[in-house]
């Protein structure tokens, strides 16, 4: 290491738009986005289920795309838009995906549900009438231990039909 290299800051001031609201904080560079959401902002709907980027419980939308927030640094989200489960529903109502999960018993313990719903919402935004195979493929980055996935498929189909009806 060159002796002349000065240590740059280990922290940074960031502003991230979370669920439509600009949120600013001084964070350590190493702070994971999931911890920024849960600890700094108190949005505990996004969960941590593993330590190898395998389970998807931490899924949020980054500029509309599902990402595993445990494998993104908060500083990478500077100036970008994050949607968490808390931002899924319109004011006073429910997103069709949330409704679908309730109607079709697509959740049991609820721990995978926020991530699963966001991945589902992103799928439907891109593919409004997915087949069962397409749904299972799109959700293969989100682990569920409780449901066996079959009702989750139905929940997504319900939501798709509801969104088609509403549009």
């Amino acid at each position, binding site marked *: 290491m060159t002796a002349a290299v000065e240590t740059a800051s280990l922290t940074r001031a960031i502003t991230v738009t979370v669920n439509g609201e600009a949120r600013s904080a001084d964070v*350590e560079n*190493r*702070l994971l986005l999931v911890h920024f959401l*849960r600890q700094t902002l*108190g*949005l*505990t*709907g*996004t*969960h*941590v*289920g*593993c*330590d*190898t980027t*395998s*389970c998807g*419980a931490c899924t949020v939308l980054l500029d509309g795309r599902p990402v595993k927030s445990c494998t993104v640094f908060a500083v990478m989200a500077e100036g970008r838009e994050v949607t*968490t*489960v*808390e931002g*899924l*529903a319109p004011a006073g109502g*429910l997103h069709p995906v*949330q409704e679908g*999960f*309730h*109607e079709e*018993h697509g*959740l*049991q*313990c*609820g*721990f*995978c*549900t*926020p991530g699963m*719903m966001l991945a589902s919402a992103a799928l439907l935004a891109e593919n409004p009438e997915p087949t*069962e195979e397409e*749904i*299972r*493929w799109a*959700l*293969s*980055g*989100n*682990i*569920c*231990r*409780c*449901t*066996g*996935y*079959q*009702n*989750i*498929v139905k929940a997504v189909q319900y939501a798709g039909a509801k969104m088609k009806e509403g549009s």
Partner: protein
Amino acid sequence: MAATEAIRGIGHSVKRLEDGRFIRGRGNYVEDIVLPRMLHLEFLRSPLAHARIRSIDTSAAEAVPGVVAVVTGELLAQHNLAWMPTLSGDTQAVLATDKVRFQGQEVAAVIAESPYVAKDATELIDVDYEPLEPVTSPQQALAEGAPVIRDDKEGQASNHIYSWEAGDREATDRALAQADRVISLDTFYPRCHPAPLECCGCVADVDAGTGKTTIYMTSQAPHAHRTLFAIVTGLPEHKIRIVSPDIGGGFGNKVPIYPGYVVATAASLLLGRPVKWIEDRTGNLISTGFARDYHMHGELAVKDGRMSGLRVKLLSDNGAFFADAQPTKLKAGLFHIVTGSYDIPAAHVETEGAYTNKAPGGVAYRCSFRVTEASYLIERLVQTAAYELGEDPVEFRRKNFIRPDQFPYKSATGFTYDSGDYEAALDLALEKLGYEELKREQAEARKQGKLIGVGIATFTEVVGAGHGADYDIAGLRMNDGAELRIHPTGKAVLKLSVKSQGQGHETTFAQIVAEELGLQPEDVEVQEGDTDHTPYGLGTYASRSTPVSGAATSMVARKLRKKAQAIAAHLLEASEDDLEWSEGRFSVRGAPEKSTSIQDIAFAAYTNIPEGMEGGLEGVHYYDPPNMTYPFGTYAVVVEIDRGTGAWKVRKVVAVDDCGVRINPMIVEGQIMGGLTEGFAIAAMELIDFDEDGNCIGANFMDYLIPTSWETPAFELGMTETPSPHHPLGAKGIGESATVGAPAAFVNAVVDALAHTGVRNLEMPVTSDKVWEALKEAELAE
């Protein structure tokens, strides 16, 4: 006049009342809990499976800014907390003192202002280990000259933990001696792990001001945990409050008491601040209660085409501490249900347990107290026997079934099965499967070199622990309770001693009250998990909530209905005997216009009670089940094997379950599908393994494989309903039936695809390479 909407009690698929908070991301899991001045605990874990600890230097860790304390076994020992009792009467290290006994064992704990800082500090703790020879199998553990793992225990000269047996040895020996054929199977049920998506954790808050210790904890059994905490720590029990909030899956992983809970509580006590411990996935897989790890040898005697005897020898790998969470009188849990759905007149089970340098545990993961192991053995053994005898696996099972007229059925190992109709479930499954057509297709396919397999499992399992005289955990009798109070405006609160981790209690139990008292489920709030506010019980695991607390709920609701009848008589100025009850109303027989609703009765309980009657409308009931309940079913799986890779694809799964009366069919089906998936996963891919140095392979989700929506097949469900004659609602419990019955169905299917070449067994997990090795040997590989 009250509305005439039908009361959504038993049999209605009421959409879950608890969903609202989960779909909004407003669940309250332990990791979500934040208390003022809260600290964070991070463990340093042992990299070695077996080693003596020469020294631990925590000075560098303590110097890290933000670190408040570093706790070692030595410090805990000063407070008599370095060791704690297990649920099986053994002791377990909280933090290692003399030795480490499995890779991943907790060695030191850093308490810091943030989890990031705590992790930084753990990297600076310097432990000097003297490696010892690791013991990585129970065979090695029990061999002559094996290193003694538990040299901390006085008088422990070997790695042998227990011997246990059930059944009739002489009768079984006779049956085997007199048999026409004895078919045997040696098989291993590998170590797997419940791996709920939420890891274990707690927030421990010892408040010196109030003298109260509150522990928010991932607990499936909060009251039992409270009592054990009181015994272990010496804190007075009335000053301990365990709060089990929303739990992200349990599956038996959240029944034991883990070092994290104890260290966090001790740290909070010593530091005067709340302490949060949330393990990471590696900690969860490498150190918390694993499941199975059972070496099984079974011999089935057949005489005149009928099963005449069953002999089983077991060797259990219990890890470094004997910490099985099971009724204390039963060292192999309920394994001796192993005669399953068959009328086998003689059976004997003997088992040995051994210590090894692995994480402690064994009874977990929807096992129904070792029924998963038993059911796997008998269903695989029966399948093998059918092939050996040249019989159709379905017909061989059918003709050996316990017949409906034999119930209640006393089994050769002492169980009294309450009710069953095994043929009905089997026939329904075969019909859904198109069994005859499938067999034809299989035969045709073989001619073209295509390998299709059909696997069946006809299981009976046993749940609902249990009758107090026979079932206790750590001495606490396995009775559970329900407390019900109706408010003046006709709404109710039901407090339970069990604890849902996703099973839908807030809906199911409200439906029981609905059925008995005519309140709609939405009018009943179900509370669980806070030991300050709920009746005492042993918690939720082993599919016991509906059999025990469900019965308690029914009984207490009936008590209230009886009182309501007396109040109704008072309101209607009629005699109690003249009143009829229907859909939440008491009416005078023959004069239906003279009626009153449960809501009006509730109001009267507080405003217009008969003279001399105690006010209010509430009660509590603790239920002591007279017997266990015996859910059963038939599962059928169709697979096709890729001869080039050995990979097998599931074409169809048919699952017919009979759990007696179904309170909420939608929830019951959800439980079944979840269990089928876990059963599939165990058969196909889940494995915790160890190399010869005791390194754990399977300590993260890259190595411990959980199936995604892509691998998981779709399920076709069916049902029969054979009520339990002794349960007030006729319900039996369902949570574990699918993990009990499914693995054998999947393995039987893959074996069936190759059985025509003489293949009889494949060991779980049945990975593609194992199938390929069998294909190669049978000269069927592409």
